[in-house]
């Protein structure tokens, strides 16, 4: 069973300087959602942004320890445009 914080640390390690929020969506430690804001996403199609994040947790996805990670990825500019949340 995974903790949201461990996933967050992995993503931060892969994308230094990013803002990351991870939520356990089912409370069962295997389905999570993550909001990631990173300058590394600039100019990249969303599919490439998601691949960058998935790469950070690929081993957990492969073993099935992490069953699902729903992603929302933004550049800092896009995130700012969304306004306060």
């Amino acid at each position: 069973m995974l903790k949201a914080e461990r996933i967050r640390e992995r993503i931060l390690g892969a994308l230094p300087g990013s803002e990351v929020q991870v939520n356990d969506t089912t409370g069962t430690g295997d389905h999570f959602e993550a909001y990631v804001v990173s300058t590394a996403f600039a100019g990249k199609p969303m599919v490439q942004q998601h691949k960058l994040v998935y790469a950070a947790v690929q081993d957990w996805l492969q073993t099935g320890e992490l069953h699902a990670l729903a992603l929302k990825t933004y550049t800092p500019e896009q995130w700012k445009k969304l306004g306060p949340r």
Partner: protein
Amino acid sequence: MTPELKARFDEEIRSHKIVLFMKGNALFPQCGFSARALQLLQPYGQVHTVDVLADAEVRQGIKDYTNWPTIPQIFINGEFVGGSDILMELAERGELAELVSGKKAEG
């Protein structure tokens, strides 16, 4: 993946503006995510669908082709867009129309 299968994917994706690899077909989607993807795409034009359940080689092959682990998979203007999550997000952000019209290269 065989070269023949890769050539088939190249051709399907090159010859249609919107391509959806899905479970089931447009009339009878066999999965909620595939149905949702189809619904999101249809306002933007003719959607060419490929039923991955009809052919096990295609079902695994498309995942190898894109290095993306899930079905459905969406291609617009010859580019791999992603799965249903990404499609939904692009629709919410109002970026889907731009992607189909090709007016903007990327988001």
